[in-house]
């Protein structure tokens, strides 16, 4: 099953993804974050904005991913985790994070990012590290937005970040609840 997702991700990345210049993308993201830092002058507010932006990206991206691949709705949260790592990250960033650290109730897992293109070239000023800026926090928002479109309400956050001096980057995804499909409002 895991192999199959990997193949789907590879295939979609190879055939259906348009490629852009990585530096252009990285610089764009970098200047966006720096502008937010300047405008908000508060790192936790910047984290929040990045998450919001990611959320808006995620709710669109998930449709795009589904349209480009032959994936169906996942049968369980562990399959979801695999799809995020092997198809989602592969298709949009060409990296495959490791899914690890499942909680006992199988409702929480971590994505370990060995390589994150967004982080390239970036070195945080000491103050940003001290105040907890999560440079790539946009990714958390993307995951949260995408999962919400798939009827999963989640909490996603960075728990470790190489830019803040940790040895790896780790994104924690926690499933809060499955959202019910809405039913039509009844007529009076």
């Amino acid at each position, binding site marked *: 099953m895991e192999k199959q997702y990997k193949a789907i991700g590879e295939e979609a990345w190879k055939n259906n993804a348009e490629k852009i210049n990585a530096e252009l993308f990285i610089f764009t993201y*970098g200047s966006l974050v720096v502008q937010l*830092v300047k405008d908000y002058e508060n790192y936790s507010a910047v984290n929040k904005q990045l998450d919001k932006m990611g959320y808006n990206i995620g709710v669109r991206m998930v449709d795009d991913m589904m349209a480009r691949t032959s994936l169906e709705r996942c049968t369980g949260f562990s399959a979801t985790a695999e799809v995020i790592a092997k198809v989602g990250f592969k298709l949009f960033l060409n990296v495959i994070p490791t899914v690890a650290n499942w909680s006992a109730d199988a409702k929480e897992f971590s994505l370990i990012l060995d390589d994150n293109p967004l982080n390239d070239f970036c070195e945080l*000023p000491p103050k940003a590290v001290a105040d907890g800026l999560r440079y790539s926090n946009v990714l958390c928002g993307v995951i949260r937005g995408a999962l919400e479109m798939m009827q999963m309400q989640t909490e996603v956050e960075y728990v470790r970040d190489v830019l803040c001096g940790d040895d790896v980057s780790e994104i924690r995804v926690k499933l809060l609840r499955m959202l019910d499909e809405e039913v039509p409002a009844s007529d009076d």
Partner: protein
Amino acid sequence: MSSTYYFAIVGTNDSPLYETELGVQRDESKYLNQFIVHAALDLVDDAQFMSTACYLKTVDRYNDWNVSAYVTPSNIRLMLLHEAKADDAIRLFFTDCHELYLKTLLNPFYEPNTPIQSQAFDVKVNTLAKKYLF
């Protein structure tokens, strides 16, 4: 052979972006170093129009000191104070430092023409110095 070097990066408006003493530290020379390099900037301005290369070799002398310079296309000046002559080694050192500076420039948090405060940059300059100058 123990020798002392003083390395400085000078921004477009003649303000220092980065400076370090390499090798044996000599307290009394601190301000003198800045003074010599600053005085040499005018000569760099003259020399850069005599050559198309970035590396301008030795542009000035002061007592035992030689002043070598390297001008990037964006008019950032890398200056090195040294006693012994070693053109090739210094050229390589400058070229690698230039590359290091470019990498710093790619960091979205670094604003061009402001002092470089990164620890990593400092460490890397020292490594390069060990590699080429000592």
